[in-house]
């Protein structure tokens, strides 16, 4: 499964655009981290389930139901999908049954955590916002126009 597939799936489950995700510089490292733990096969299974069950639906409501049911709700795929979300959000791979190890994907993963980006803050110790910036209200970034990854919309060349 290609990096693009991984990033498209990640975009939909994290709520960040593919551009934002690539902009962390961590996409390849995360993909390798996931494959390293669950194997290429395990990752491919997740991504093809997503492709098969979700990507063709254009109705957002249906799409959400389907994603919740067949991916997040799947006893095997769900934990993996949730772990990928957490990985993007804080750089940590949390131990799963069978793969108990909890670890940070790389030292540079943590500073790129989307968790802090989502709330208009910075990960403690990284991406400093500047003297006095804390005195004003947080700048919480707007959500993208659509939850559907750009590369999966009809005109993929524009993605």
């Amino acid at each position, binding site marked *: 499964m290609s990096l693009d597939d991984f990033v498209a799936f990640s975009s939909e489950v994290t709520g960040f655009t593919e551009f934002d995700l690539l902009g962390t*510089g961590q996409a390849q490292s995360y993909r390798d981290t996931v494959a390293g733990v669950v194997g290429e096969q395990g990752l491919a299974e997740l991504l093809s389930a997503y492709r098969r069950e979700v990507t063709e639906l254009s109705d957002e409501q249906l799409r959400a139901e389907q994603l919740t049911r067949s991916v997040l709700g799947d006893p095997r795929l769900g934990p993996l999908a949730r772990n990928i979300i957490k990985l993007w959000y804080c750089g940590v791979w949390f131990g799963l049954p069978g793969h108990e190890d909890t670890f940070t994907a790389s030292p540079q993963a943590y500073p790129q955590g989307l968790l802090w980006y989502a709330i208009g803050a910075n990960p403690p110790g990284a991406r400093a916002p500047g003297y006095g910036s804390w005195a004003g209200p947080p700048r919480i970034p707007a959500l993208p126009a659509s939850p559907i990854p750009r590369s999966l919309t009809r005109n993929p060349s524009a993605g």
Partner: protein
Amino acid sequence: MTSQTQLLDRPLPAEIDTVADLEAYLNAALRLEHATIPPYLTALYSLHPGTNSDARHVIRVVAVEEMLHLTLVANVMNAIGRRVDLTADDFVPAYPAHLPSGETDFLVSVQPFSPAAVTTFLNIERPAKAPSEGRRLLPYSDDLGAGTVLAASPLNPGVRFYSIGEFYAEIDRGLRHLDHEYRQRGEELFSGDPAWQVTEEYFYSGGGEVVPVTDLASALRALTLIAEQGEGLGGGIYDGEGELSHYYRFEQIQLARYYQKGDVAARPSGPRLDVDFSAVYPVAIDTELADYPAGTPAFEAAETFSRTYADFLAYLTAAYHGQPHQLLDAVAWMFRLRDDMNRLIRNPFPGRPGVHASPVFGRGPLERS
């Protein structure tokens, strides 16, 4: 003998004779100081995170001090009661821009960190004195292409200075000359509102200190600081504050060793310095918005960045226009620009395999339409 005392002996006529001339020169100086910031920032953020710590620190300090230089020139401008404007259409140069290096000139590009970039940085900061009075100003050919010619005479089209040092020497001379003339007439050249001066309280560089300008002495001090931070004091490697000058900071990268107190030029004896030119995002060189395929997220991000950058320049302009406290937020702006640049630089350039996206620095209202 310092360059200043030497200048006093220089025969006239030189270029600056009126306040309008001086204003034109200061405007050129603002452009010149600013012109180095996009290349430094792009090289800085092209470094892979977690790598190249030494180079990162060197470039970061220089970039921040270029902001200081911009502010110092703004202080001189405000001190003579003229307006600082960073929003003019041509304020951000077209890259690659031309800078003088003695008889020849060289190109300044917005490019990734590389040996070539380091050479350019050294060229920017290299100390150079014209061999004779007659060579201070040199003609340049008009077939230089679209790139802006920096350190050119703002009064005489087709003429540029031998070096940045000589360019500033001219301003130095002009200031003395005009101050003298004003005094003789019983007038005050430095008639600007002192409340507009950016003081240390509002601007913080990490390196040198900002000089509030209220008279000839402080104006000359401000310009001297710019020159010394760039190329060192009187041929030494340190400036008057004991800070290593930019030229020698960059040379450390080339020589892979730090300077320390007591060292002389070209012979650093401090700790080793490591550079990894491969741990760099290969960002596109001298990108224009038009280079990005329309409709791609990279295009949109580059456009947004460019607009944000133009807004930043407008914000600075307002700060220099009697609102110095606004500069306190300039740091937060810079950090946000940093995050935006990083996001862009880590994305591939659409349609150019092996090349990464690169920031485009907004050039006033023109690019906004």
